[in-house]
């Protein structure tokens, strides 16, 4: 049984009453000071828009080379997948899997989950496995290390810069924008609004399923 107006701080378990906030403000825990919730509007629409844009950039970032190298007239370049492949070919399977999961699989999964949840919600539907998707999203987000990878590319180019002519790849810019979008998704997504929308959609679907004859009076808005 849910206890609606109460929230418990996720970091210190203090029970507090949820109060409405003025726009663009954050409620913090009274005891430990951690941010509890923000006042947001249209957060789901913004998350959806960022997710759609991020999908495009993730595809672009993975198709183009992240960096190139010119040594004595020889040119080599690599994509992210090329790096995963090179580690795999050298029998560093675990390291290869680690790079694949943190730079490709986790962000791709996060974006798929966001679209799976937010697109139907936007269209007045409720996806079948909404709860499962909701629980998996933060795990995928936690293991996505695109920002760290980007710094890694920069550091390796600096390392090589003493020995050869390095060419930053176009994918590097796509990764930069992708990092901004992934951050924006995390910042704009509001779990409160998410569950409100899901409950509203569910109620509307039930009402239309039970037929217009027994439709209860709706409050005028």
């Amino acid at each position: 049984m849910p206890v609606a107006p109460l929230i418990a701080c996720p970091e210190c378990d203090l029970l507090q009453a949820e109060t409405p906030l003025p726009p663009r403000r954050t409620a913090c825990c009274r005891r430990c000071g951690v941010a509890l919730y923000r006042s947001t509007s249209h957060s789901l629409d913004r998350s959806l828009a960022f997710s759609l844009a991020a999908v495009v950039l993730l595809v672009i970032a993975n198709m183009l080379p992240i960096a190139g190298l010119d040594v004595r007239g020889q040119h080599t370049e690599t994509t992210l997948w090329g790096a995963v492949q090179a580690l795999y070919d050298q029998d560093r399977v675990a390291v290869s899997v680690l790079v694949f999961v943190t730079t490709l699989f986790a962000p791709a999964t996060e974006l798929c989950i966001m679209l799976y949840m937010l697109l139907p919600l936007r269209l007045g539907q409720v996806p079948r496995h909404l709860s499962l998707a909701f629980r998996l999203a933060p795990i995928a987000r936690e293991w996505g290390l695109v920002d760290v990878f980007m710094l890694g590319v920069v550091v390796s180019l600096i390392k090589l810069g003493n020995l050869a002519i390095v060419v930053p790849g176009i994918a590097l810019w796509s990764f930069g924008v992708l990092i901004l979008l992934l951050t924006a998704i995390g910042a704009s997504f509001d779990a409160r609004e998410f569950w409100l929308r899901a409950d509203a959609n569910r109620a509307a679907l039930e009402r239309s399923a039970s037929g217009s004859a027994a439709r209860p009076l709706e409050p005028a808005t």
Partner: protein
Amino acid sequence: MSLPHTTAVDAGLLSCPACELVSRPPPGAADVFATATARCPRCGARVHPRKPDSIARTWAFLIAACVLYIPANALPIMDTSSLFDAQQDTILSGVVYLWTTGSWVTALIVFIASIVTPLLKLVTLSALVISVQKKSTWRPHMRARLYRVVSLVGRWSMLDIFVVAVLVALVQIQSIAVITAGPGAFAFGAVVVLTMFAAFSFDPRLIWDPVKAAHA
């Protein structure tokens, strides 16, 4: 109304780790605080008053990470072979190379991400678990903030793994130089993953539990 600090556990309530909904344990569950059967009524995630076996799990991950920390730093993470010589690089020698070639800022970044952060994370998390085991009431605000910082910065330790991945893919010019990943890369990656798991399994609410008891 609730100015004396009342936690969800005190009130006999459960809060969902995924969607943060506060709920009453289902009737009939005799001791929901001991068992692991309750699920969040909204999102279906397993709800526990505190993360189950938080201390034991955190210790397990920390000890495993400590053990692997030695090969992670002693073994080469990268082998460079060129026409003239073969060179093996550990994490530390990579930093030294950057420093001696004049890339001081980069050297500092890699030093902090690869050497300072994992060590600091191991020490801080161990200290936090010990303080929780001793039911310490010492500066809970500072310890809570330490935990927050440690779980935020931990991911940046993966930096060197990505550097190796990019170098290994780029430097494959058979006639000039070839870079391959060394056994240290596996150990180092494992240390970072294990410390991330350690941070996830630690329950920061345990820091505050004895604080409340002392004030009551």
